[in-house]
């Protein structure tokens, strides 16, 4: 019942943007005056705004249905954890990962002191009313899953579109719809230049050197945005990993369309192609993961499906592998080490009298494959190069698609699929995240394009999230996903406001001193910068990044303590926390502080209209305070309400010297230590940025020249683009050209050769025919004639003579017969 209500709310939120897309495209094409109308934009805003309301309604419905046990439960966990970890461990052990009916023991029903209204202001109004309906005892269902419709069914195999709703789904839905609504509003102002019949694109040139003139494409932009929202929400709602893949590709194509929105610009279409194709490289890995899962599990569903009586009809992936309660490792066959495929109670399923199982290495392959998809989508090393190029798209696109939602989908999937990852995969995830966050941060230090800095910062932050997930900080990684979505979309919109105000100037060296001209933008941007740097604040009103980055660093430190050989996984993020603060404050000082460096730009600069500043003013408080309360605040508790069960106690080493995954307690123990270190790094980074860019104490240009070697290396993005060009692009085209040549030359010349041979044979045949065959026949003819002529002598016409011939002949014949066959 609740499940259906939730499903309906979220499906409305999901499908409304699709309807919006259809309307906007048709409206744009068929209306008389599409170039001057904002109707498309209002339609898009209406759809996504309604989607936000539906998401809030769903959140409230969900919370009421389980008495907000997600919030309470964690409070009680905190107490129990202090009391002794065995009790807490037992609780967590009970709700096996992804079980359909997750039993959430609400031990401490009285702990209702938490106010849930901080982030979801709309939700709070009705949420509080029902909140105190007391269901003090019993278990509550928090995950709901089911089938939407079947795509294909082959014997026992079934592929369908499903839904899977838990606290993570709901938080993601609310976040995506809220941010998307703000960005839609902002885009209405930002894209208003497109409301014309004669748009002049200053960055696209025809062959005679003139600017391209074209009709404005306002409605098309909003249609694409709506389509993207549909795809993104579908991705979050997806109840099986195949469905995730479907929407994965769809957000990819929307990203392609939006990056290449300025189709006239070669750089834009190149960037769009690059984005899509690099994502496909990741998706190739994703596909391999899907194939392994499909072959061994025969299902893609996350959760179980139940029939009308509430009995499990078909198991989902999460319940088909079980973890040992004591160690947290997968149950395996004792001899082969293969991971058992189990029923809901942890007993191995049977097939042909044997236990069903999947070789351990294939589970690693499946995990790495799925993660490869995430690497592509979240622009992780080594597929990170597409994201900076994607900044060719209009800035609202960068804010929505390439910072807050789509690129975070990789992190989301890693989090969603977490129960299936084995230690080796997690370690890979951690290292990939670690490399990414460092590489991207170093490049961001030297970038001068305001959007490029933010792009590299996004890559780097996504690296943090991946690292967090990889070191078993599941909650920390996803926590950072949400906080990052708010502050990064805010900063992108601020940069959009700057770009808009400076007439499409994106180079920071031409800016400076914009604080007075654009006060709202500058201040909101400062909020974002403080948030990403992770600054604390008085009265516990810490910036959101403070909580989420601390959580990640703490997880990393706990991981390092458990596995000392992986110390880099802690020190690099710590160092990078400083670099992050440095490049972000550098951006802010460069842009808004000091004296104007380009008077032309500065004179024409102006604050953006209200439709662009209002979204900034909405997002800024959210970016600041969405993480209020940190790991005992509502956002974190909501997010981790349905956390995989094996997180709490960590995972013991499977083999001698294997990886140990720290549990909550271990993280908790080092939290303050890690937080202080991260804070020190962030402050020093910010301080250096202030000294270099906020004051005139140091000549930055001179420093750049002194360090030209390393500067060039970083400015060339570690030469990844050149490397890939030489390693993959050029060889691919070479091989392709070879194939085309082979086809045309070899196959066809074989064909032509054999054709010529046939002609040759037939010519020879003709000669043979004329000379030999005909000659023989002619010879036969003439000889017959001559024989005939010679017989003419015998043909006398006299009967008696003939009779005599016959008699002689018969006698001769008999003689022959009797001599050869005597008796």
């Amino acid at each position, binding site marked *: 019942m609740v499940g259906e209500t939730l499903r309906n709310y979220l499906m409305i939120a999901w499908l409304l943007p699709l309807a919006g897309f259809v309307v906007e495209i048709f409206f744009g094409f068929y209306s008389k005056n599409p170039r001057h109308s904002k109707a498309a934009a209002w339609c898009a805003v209406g759809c996504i705004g309604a989607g936000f309301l539906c998401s809030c309604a769903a959140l409230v419905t969900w919370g009421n249905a389980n008495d907000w046990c997600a919030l309470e439960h964690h409070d009680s966990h905190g107490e129990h954890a202090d009391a002794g970890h065995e009790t807490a461990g037992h609780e967590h052990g009970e709700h096996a990962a992804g079980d359909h009916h997750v039993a959430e023991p609400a031990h401490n029903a009285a702990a209702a002191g938490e106010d849930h209204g901080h982030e979801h202001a709309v939700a709070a109004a009705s949420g509080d009313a029902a909140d105190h309906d007391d269901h003090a005892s019993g278990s509550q269902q928090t995950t709901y899953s089911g089938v939407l419709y079947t795509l294909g*069914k082959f014997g026992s195999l079934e592929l369908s579109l499903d839904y899977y709703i838990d606290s993570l789904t709901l938080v993601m839905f609310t976040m995506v719809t809220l941010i998307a609504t703000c960005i839609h509003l902002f885009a209405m102002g930002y894209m208003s230049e497109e409301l014309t019949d004669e748009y002049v694109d200053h960055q696209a040139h*025809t062959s005679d050197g003139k600017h391209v003139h074209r009709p404005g494409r306002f409605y098309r932009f909003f249609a694409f945005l709506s389509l993207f929202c549909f795809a993104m929400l579908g991705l979050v709602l997806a109840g099986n990993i195949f469905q995730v893949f479907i929407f994965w590709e769809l957000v990819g194509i929307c990203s392609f369309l939006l990056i290449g929105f300025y189709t006239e610009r070669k750089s834009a279409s190149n960037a769009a192609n690059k984005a899509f194709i690099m994502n496909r490289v990741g998706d190739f890995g994703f596909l391999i993961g899907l194939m392994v899962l499909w*072959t061994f599990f025969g299902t893609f569903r996350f959760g179980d499906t139940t029939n009308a009586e509430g009995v499990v009809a078909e198991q989902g992936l999460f319940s088909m592998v079980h973890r040992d309660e004591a160690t947290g490792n997968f149950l395996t066959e004792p001899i082969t080490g293969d991971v058992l495929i189990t029923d809901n109670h942890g007993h191995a399923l049977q097939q042909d009298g044997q236990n069903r199982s999947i070789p351990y290495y294939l589970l690693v392959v499946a995990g790495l494959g799925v993660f490869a998809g995430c690497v592509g989508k979240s622009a992780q090393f080594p597929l990170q190069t597409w994201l900076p190029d994607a900044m060719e798209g209009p800035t609202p696109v960068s804010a929505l698609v390439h910072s807050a939602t789509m690129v975070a989908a990789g992190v989301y999937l890693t989090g969603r699929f977490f129960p299936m990852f084995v230690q080796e995969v997690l370690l890979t995830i951690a290292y990939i995240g670690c490399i990414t966050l460092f590489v991207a941060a170093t490049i961001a230090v030297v970038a001068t394009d305001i959007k490029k800095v933010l792009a590299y910062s996004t890559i780097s932050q996504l690296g943090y999230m991946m690292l967090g997930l990889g070191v078993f900080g599941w909650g920390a990684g996803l926590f950072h996903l949400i906080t990052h979505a708010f502050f990064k979309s805010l900063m992108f919109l601020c940069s959009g406001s700057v770009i808009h105000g400076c007439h499409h100037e994106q180079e920071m060296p031409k800016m400076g001193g914009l604080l007075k001209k654009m006060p709202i933008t500058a201040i909101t941007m400062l909020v974002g910068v403080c948030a990403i740097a992770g600054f604390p604040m008085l009265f516990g009103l810490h910036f959101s990044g403070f909580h989420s980055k601390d959580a990640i660093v703490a997880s990393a430190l706990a991981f390092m303590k458990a596995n000392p050989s992986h110390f880099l996984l802690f020190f690099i993020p710590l160092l990078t926390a400083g670099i992050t603060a440095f490049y972000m404050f550098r951006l802010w000082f460069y842009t808004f502080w000091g004296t104007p460096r380009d008077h032309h730009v500065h004179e024409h600069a102006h604050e953006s209209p209200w439709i662009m500043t209002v979204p900034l003013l909405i997002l800024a408080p959210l970016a600041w305070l969405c993480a209020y309360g940190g790991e005992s605040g509502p956002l974190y508790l909501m997010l981790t309400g349905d956390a995989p069960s094996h997180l709490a106690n960590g995972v013991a080493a499977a083999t001698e010297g294997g990886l140990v995954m720290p549990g909550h307690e271990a993280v908790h123990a080092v939290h303050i230590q890690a937080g202080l270190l991260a804070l020190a790094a962030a402050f020093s980074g910010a301080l250096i940025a202030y000294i270099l860019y906020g004051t005139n104490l140091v000549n930055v240009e001179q420093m750049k020249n002194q360090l030209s070697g390393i500067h060039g290396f970083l400015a060339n993005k570690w030469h990844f683009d050149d490397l890939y060009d030489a390693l993959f692009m050029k060889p691919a085209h070479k091989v392709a050209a070879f194939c085309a040549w082979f086809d045309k030359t070899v196959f066809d010349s074989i064909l032509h050769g054999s054709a010529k041979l046939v002609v040759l044979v037939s010519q020879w045949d003709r000669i043979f025919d004329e000379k030999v065959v005909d000659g023989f026949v002619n010879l036969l003819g003439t000889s017959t004639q001559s024989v005939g002529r010679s017989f003419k002598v015998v043909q006398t016409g006299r009967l008696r003579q003939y009779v005599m011939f016959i008699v002689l002949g018969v006698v001769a014949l008999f003689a022959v017969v009797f001599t050869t066959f005597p008796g």
Partner: protein
Amino acid sequence: MTPEFLLTAIIFLPAIGALVLSIIDGKAVDAIRFMSLGVTIATFVLTLMLWMQFDYETAGIQFEVSKAWIPNWNIFYRLGVDGISLPLVVLTSLVSMLSCVASWSINKLHKGYFMLFLLLETGMMGVFLSLDFFLFFVFWEVMLLPMYFLIGVWGGPRKEYAALKFFLYTLAGGVLMLIAMLMFYFNSGGTEHSFNLIELAKAASGTSDHITGFLSPSMQITAFVLLFIGFAIKLPAFPVHTWLPDAHVEAPTPISMILAGVLLKLGGYGIIRIAFPLCPYGAAYAAYALVAIGVISIIYGALAALAQTDFKRLVAYSSVSHMGYVLIGLGVWKITEGTTVNSDMWLMGINGAMFQMVAHGISSAGMFFMVGVIYDRVHHRDLNKFGGLMGLMPLYSGLAAGLFFAGLGLPGLCGFIGEIFVVLSTWNYSPLLAIIAASGVILTAGYILWALQRVYLGAEYKGPHKEDITRMNAREASVAIVLLAIAIVLGVFPGIIFDMMHASTSALVESMKLGYQHAADLVKAAADTQAMR
């Protein structure tokens, strides 16, 4: 209208139309066009009626027609449909109808063109509906001749070469098929030899009441190889695909649509209707080769497409690449120690392959049509001399992008379902081949996006005849919109096709497992006797 009459009408209505056309004055061009269009629409409606009356639950042949044709040789006029042929029959009439609309661009010898066009449709329908091997063969050859003339007379500069190449390739395949056909006929045993495909298939699995004869396992392998080569040429599969790019490049647009949309499917249909059920042991024996050839076709076709500069040639090679999935899906029959394992995966592969055939029929017909639309305006196909069409022809560009995305295998469009279902079923058979096949997604994205970029995006049009670039007219738009709409519907609700063929493909898998067991038992018995001696 009795079902028997319905099938006959579907086959021969176009031929009758062609006869009527012959008495129309050749100068009344519009009359000829609308007459032909009317006939193709009527045929389409008939196939829809067939679909309406079709029973999804029945696995066997429906609407069976059986009339003695040449009784001395036991040749029958035997027709019928099942879940395997029905989707292709509907696809054929649909693509014929749409390419008839596209045929407005034909500008010479209208009467002859449309007569041949309609005859071609008769041939294609005949192949899909006939259940007598001899009849099948006759229609197969009937189809060949109109195609030869349609390419050879109405084609581009190298039309004679292309037409001849097409003809000889197909004929060579036909000869191999003929040999195999006679092998079955003379081994069908009993008092009377038979061309009955259904009974021959039953005989292969040892369940026939009428045919006592049975191809020995080794002969099955020979027959399968002969048939497979014949059908692989049509499919086309690497390395017998080289007729395809030439035929496509030279053929006029509507004929390219038919060629890609329907004719290539005959290859896949032949394998699943004849080669598989008639020689299950041979199919099992050659399964790995099938999958491997499919994988090579995918990668090779995609790479060759990447290097093309001719727009139409690129689309042609994309067909080679996409039809590779059909071979893979059919071939993923995993047999370990004499028993089929995980046959649901194979069933999924077969379904995916069938879906891929239909999906490719829609998307490639659409792509060829889109190439034709721009060719009609600027009379060149050089990929490097386009650009900026998005601004000049927005509707055309949008629809083209949609159809090319369908070819790219984007979810939500038809191309995705076939490809992904086939690929998912492949790991069970061979992880290595599965991985190589999956890597095709990167190359496919590469050549399609690069082509889109060069043709539709960019600041300006770089080729000749810029002044002739006009927006799409209603006739052209209607063809593209219908194709794109079907691509979306099939992509979102693939169950439409899967439900149609579910019963038949399941039965096929079961009977082939039986047939393999039947033959394998013989082999084992022979080996045992050998050992006893």
